[in-house]
């Protein structure tokens, strides 16, 4: 009798490895989760709806204040346009031209 079982393709072996590490990995392989993530590429800072709701609530309640270190805009704090780090164009010439 043959010693080896059915030879698993390297790809299937890799798939088994991945599923072992991430058992809840999406049912649809390579499906809409990837694609939607791809379409949404780009740092989204806030939802204007959330922002306006928060501003309205601020009138009645105390919202958590921004962390002392204002460079990070994350978590519970609703970012405001003033908090956003300014993206400036590159003023330095490309090193390829140097």
């Amino acid at each position, binding site marked *: 009798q043959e010693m080896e079982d059915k030879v698993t*393709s*390297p*790809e*299937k*072996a*890799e*798939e088994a*490895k*991945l*599923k072992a*590490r991430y058992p809840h*990995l999406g049912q649809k*392989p*390579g*499906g*809409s989760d*990837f*694609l*939607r993530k*791809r*379409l949404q*590429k*780009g*740092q*989204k*800072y*806030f*939802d*204007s709806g959330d922002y306006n709701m928060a501003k309205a609530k601020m009138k009645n309640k105390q919202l958590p204040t921004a962390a002392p270190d204002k460079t990070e805009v994350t978590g519970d704090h609703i970012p405001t346009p003033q908090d*956003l780090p300014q*993206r*400036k*164009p*590159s003023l*330095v*010439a*490309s*090193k*390829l*031209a*140097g």
Partner: protein
Amino acid sequence: LFPGAGGGNDIQWCFSQVKGAVDDDVAEADIISTVEFNHSGELLATGDKGGRVVIFQQEQENKIQSHSRGEYNVYSTFQSHEPEFDYLKSLEIEEKINKIRWLPQKNAAQFLLSTNDKTIKLWKISERDKRPEGYNLKEEDGRYRDPTTVTTLRVPVFRPMDLMVEASPRRIFANAHTYHINSISINSDYETYLSADDLRINLWHLEITDRSFNIVDIKPANMEELTEVITAAEFHPNSCNTFVYSSSKGTIRLCDMRASALCDRHSKLFEEPEDPSNRSFFSEIISSISDVKFSHSGRYMMTRDYLSVKIWDLNMENRPVETYQVHEYLRSKLCSLYENDCIFDKFECCWNGSDSVVMTGSYNNFFRMFDRNTKRDITLEASRENNKPRTVLKPRKVCASGKRKKDEISVDSLDFNKKILHTAWHPKENIIAVATTNNLYIFQDKVN
């Protein structure tokens, strides 16, 4: 493999030049994002993540010193795109240059299209080597003269000056893409061009910026039903009515603009049948086409997916006519390549001028060439260690598993941060431009 001989009619590739900083600490802005020769090959443009374009010009051949063809020196550099903020969607728009495409030269100036995720710009690059001198009302330094001191009149004349190369934006094609632009392609009519994002393709006239025609729209009515996106698009080099676009599912659709205004129904669908028993979680991801390029002849097109390069005959839709494995040894590393996101890397590919050899990049700063006639292939490395001009590059070999021979590199030693995603081949000569993360290498074949 065969020592000494190069792939591609036994071309022997030699290092010619390298551009960019030596230091290992790479600033994000310096990451090269596109490389493109112009139609004559005299100019070579690069775009980077910082939105800058650098154009190199080949110096005129020195007839006496014919060791090599002319070197490429900086001709012009400018800031093409700047970071923007879309306030409506609170999204940052990157200034990274996704693609540069040259227009064929019509007059003394050069024109190119450059695009980031959202906006395409037409740039005019012109030379100024004369300036007017001898004004009546102005001094040479520009200060105005007191008119009462002018006693004679003279006619200003043009005098030679040091060459100045100026880049100016002539057209801005904005606000036509909801999703991220991945391709631009100039039509063979030299009047129109297409721009493609994840879900739509638009047709523009080079003179008209306030209007664009949508020619492909694959956005489903319900986004939950989204199954594939457009990954690349290109116009046919000769037929002005024909273009192709590739998808994340490994298909290529050829469309004829004469058939209808909206080319949602393809004229041809190119797809290689898949063996369902081989299907895995990774199948669709690695089948996603990252680049599609027509041959110069227009008879064939080449596609690049994660592990291979395929050549398709436009007359045969059901399978490619040639398939070349770029780095098949990665198939048994897909799990880790998925975890470190490398599996989503988008490699480009290119043809040589005679369509006999194709080239594409890989990891560890390796790049590969496949000779379609001899069926030989070669792996070379873009590295500063090989930078003695006119020294023939040594072929590299990756050892998939088991016993590693001397001079071979094992798969586990490959540096996956050193990716060659962008390469370009001079349209007429054996000169290639290979971009590592932040350096541009130029290689030439050995001229005896």
